């Protein structure tokens, strides 16, 4: 939905500079649900468990079961109302796990993990949440295909103003 241009402005103000592919690549760390953005590399739950114990368990508990940084691993759908909202019941896309861990964790050393470490940790958390089996290899091809329990929980906003309370 671009816009027809009716402003009495120059086509370009000539400010800024073209971005190079190299500098875009450096910053373009996001991962889309379709897997766009996933780097080379791969991981497994077993390798992930070792890294998790070392770098994550202090804040999230052994196996992600809970700690000062919050709980990462529970299972069951959101219909079990008292269950904490976690990867296993409230994350609609597996790609988000990779994206979020890589950009923000560990909380005290953000941005310090290698892609390989992130793949391993992702595999570990998906396995601990009973979404993938413990032999599964997680990489750019397999991760977007993981179907998450929470996939169909979300509806778009239907609040629109006006008298109706939603």
């Amino acid at each position, binding site marked *: 939905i671009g816009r027809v241009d009716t402003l009495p402005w120059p086509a370009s103000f000539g400010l800024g500079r073209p971005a190079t592919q190299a500098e875009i690549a450096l910053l373009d760390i996001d991962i889309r*649900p379709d897997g766009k953005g996933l780097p080379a590399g791969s991981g497994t739950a077993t390798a992930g468990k070792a890294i998790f114990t070392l770098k994550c368990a202090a804040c999230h508990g052994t196996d992600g079961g809970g700690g000062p940084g919050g709980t990462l691993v529970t299972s069951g759908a959101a219909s079990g109302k008292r269950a904490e909202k976690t990867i296993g019941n409230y994350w609609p*896309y597996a790609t*988000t796990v990779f994206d979020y861990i890589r950009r923000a964790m560990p909380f005290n050393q953000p941005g310090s993990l290698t892609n390989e470490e992130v793949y391993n940790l992702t595999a570990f958390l998906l396995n601990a949440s009973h979404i993938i089996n413990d032999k599964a290899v997680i990489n750019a091809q397999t991760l977007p295909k993981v179907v998450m329990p929470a996939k169909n929980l979300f509806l778009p906003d239907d*609040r629109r103003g006006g008298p109706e309370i939603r």
Partner: protein
Amino acid sequence: AVAVVQTSFAKAVQIGISGTSFPADDPTKRPGVPPGERGTRSLFEKAAKKPSDISSRTPLQDLYGMLTPSDLHFERHHNGVPAIDPAKHELLIHGMVEKPMVFNLADLKRFPSVSRIAFLECSGNFRTGKETLSPQDICGLTSQSEWTGVKLSTLFREVGVRPVATWFLAEGGDAAVMTRSIPIRKGWDDAIIAYAQNGEALRPEQGYPVRLFLPGWEGNTNVKWLRRLELSDQPYMTREETSKYTEPIKDTERGPGKFRQFSFDIDARSIITFPAYPNPVQPGWIEIRGLAWSGRGKVSRVDVSTDAGKSWHSATLQDPILDKAHTAFRYLWQWKGDETEIMSRVTDETGYIQPTIGQLLEARGPDMGGYHLNPITAWQIKRDGRVLHRPETWK
């Protein structure tokens, strides 16, 4: 210099005619502080934000008018306030655009600019559950500033956003590398890449040197310390927009257990900030004061009840009433000392009337979560003048 003044003052008391009747620290009798480079705040003034580990709340009950002093603007961040050198900070715009571009701060400031006064509210801005809560405790995650920057539509035009782009990702340069997906229509409509706040550069806590400002939309989408925008034909489903800023709803067609996603608009809301806990009142004439706002446009009216909701009276709105802005309201009331409850209710220009918590529960279901809660908030006035929050209980 102080010693000299004090000595001569002591002498003045002995020889002066009125000196003996004035207090020893009479400010008319000693030269004051000379003009300076930066003004000060009186040491007698104690207004402060209330910090938790993850946020800090604006002291609404201590403020006046519609603006929030920049250093009392609420804070919410996901891994602290970064220290950014503006000379090194850049904004990259790429993805579905004709020309991926990098803009430094000087570039951004040279584009055609815009200013607007608007509120910013966190969608998690509600607390209740006990009587000893102040406006700051209940709803201190809303603040208002004059924001200045370049319209995002101007930058979209500059980089040549492709017609296929329907969303964009906004990414911050903080330790959380915060990301949110935003529908492109908001970018073309009224989004601002803001570099100034209340006349000066953004404050670090509000995204220095540059942030996304989305008038009327939930705080988290207004990505601070903005470093990157990527145009896309789908949302990115970031952690914030899936596992966090989503809330349980009642879906009558598809059954329970559904959640609302991409719930951007801030529903209309108001709160009385005076009288309010912790400040007691005395019997007599009281100007009831508060703030009202809507993420969907202007405030149309505010009604105030002083009899626990039985009858409502139209409050006076302070001009100017601005689009998506805190609007001050006032209602003059004579309190005769009887126990009662007072509350306010806003109507916005779409005709939306601020609901009670009961109406919210009925519309959203019993497990409605903690986001986008905008209920009418009541203060109990006790016979001894104490003013207490009337807690809402539903879980």
